[in-house]
């Protein structure tokens, strides 16, 4: 059990800057994100796209913004729990007990949800029959590639993950690559390689088809694919892999008894607390009159939520407002020598 002042859900720019503000006012926090890296949407969706509306930064990419925010909170040495997801919340005596998917447990008076539009999860096959095999022979990521040795593997998708795995697995498996159109969005070199492997019959390449059904009797046996004009084919398959990128799902957050408005959480604008005492929501996931889904709004929301957390984390102390330019306490926390 890790005891802390605040658990932040979401390591996007809003969560990171909230962590900074917590550090500045002397609170500790632990940050959980289900991506395997820090940065949220900035890193996952648009690492290379320039952003033009960060105050005093005329232009920076999602990756640069993330790196700067990481740099900014370095002095506080906060822990990140990546590739993990907050699953369960329980309240006892004004403390929140938090459990993650990987079995980590936290005790904290405050939770800050900076979850964007939810957690990133792989898009799955639309076919209902695929659910039965999910995690066994229908997979959306690969942890152990040795299971595919000498097996028939049907891969769906046209991006780098699909192409890279098709190339990699073609060494030791019977690979079929299925994609909905003729063009691929993967790196040109990989596309070239796929075409070569297809030409010399190392892999089967089938385009303009998508999944229709998976079939099996206990274990997976085949996958049926369809073209838009209604033709279908059945391919023998021990494993079916889908690489359709990531989608965002609200996930367990929807089950914590928070008021929800579509996929957002209503908050008050004084401290961004939700209808649950000690649970705050900031960034894209929060909602209030006039809400703008801008990174700069998330920064503001994080700064105020941090002060809201102070009240529950230090009930016997009075919060004192200080400037970073003037306060020696803050400079100590930042490790600044003068």
């Amino acid at each position, binding site marked *: 059990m890790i005891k802390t002042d605040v658990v932040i859900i979401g390591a996007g720019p809003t969560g990171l800057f909230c962590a900074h503000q917590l550090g500045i006012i002397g609170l500790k926090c632990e940050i959980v994100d289900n991506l395997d890296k820090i940065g949220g*949407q900035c890193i996952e*969706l*648009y690492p290379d*796209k320039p952003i033009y509306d960060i105050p005093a930064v005329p232009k920076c990419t999602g990756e640069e913004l993330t790196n700067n925010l990481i740099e900014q909170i370095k002095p506080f040495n906060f822990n990140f729990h990546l590739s993990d997801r907050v699953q369960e919340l329980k309240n006892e005596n004004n403390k929140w007990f938090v459990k993650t998917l990987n079995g980590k447990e936290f005790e904290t008076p405050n939770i800050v949800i900076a979850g964007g*539009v939810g957690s990133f999860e792989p*898009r799955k096959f*639309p076919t209902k029959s695929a659910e039965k095999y999910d995690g066994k022979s229908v997979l959306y990521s690969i942890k152990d590639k040795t299971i595919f040795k000498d097996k028939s593997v049907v891969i769906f*998708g*046209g*991006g780098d993950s699909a192409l890279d795995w098709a190339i990699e697995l073609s060494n030791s498996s019977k690979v079929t690559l299925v*994609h*909905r*159109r003729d*063009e691929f*969005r993967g790196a040109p070199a990989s596309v070239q390689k796929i075409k070569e492997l297809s030409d010399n019959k190392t892999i089967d390449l089938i385009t303009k088809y*998508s999944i229709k059904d998976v079939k099996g009797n206990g274990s997976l046996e085949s996958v049926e694919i369809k073209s*838009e004009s209604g033709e279908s084919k059945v391919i023998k398959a021990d494993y079916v892999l889908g690489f*359709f*990128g*990531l*989608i*965002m*799902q609200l996930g367990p957050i929807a089950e914590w008894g928070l008021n929800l408005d579509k*996929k957002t959480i209503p908050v008050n604008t004084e401290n961004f607390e939700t209808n649950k005492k000690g649970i705050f929501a900031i960034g894209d996931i929060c909602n209030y009159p006039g809400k703008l*889904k801008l990174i700069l709004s998330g920064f503001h929301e994080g700064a105020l939520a941090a002060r809201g957390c102070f009240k529950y984390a230090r009930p016997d102390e009075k919060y004192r407002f200080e400037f970073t330019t003037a306060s020696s306490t803050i400079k100590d926390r930042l490790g600044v020598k003068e």
Partner: protein
Amino acid sequence: MAKIKYIEFNGTEHEADVANGLSVMEGAIQNDIPGIDADCGGGMSCATCHVYINDDEWFKKLPEKEMGEDDMLDQAFEPKSNSRLSCQLIVSDDLDGLTVHMPEKQV
């Protein structure tokens, strides 16, 4: 200004007058028409404003896809050759009478 018809997967029809310059996606969001999520807010980075243009004439009449739209559509729910991202369809008088069909779901 263009009148755009949005048809949900279950057949429910909605009509909205959408001002020139807005996207078909924004027309849906501003009029509370369900079926288009637009998680990324119009940045062509999420594929949750996916629609089908069932009328072939209309499909050909629409502005061509820019680079990246098809890549994003690869990641949509059940994309077809008549799929578009509604955030990339900018409304003008020319789009008056356009009908878009929503997929069964976006995520």
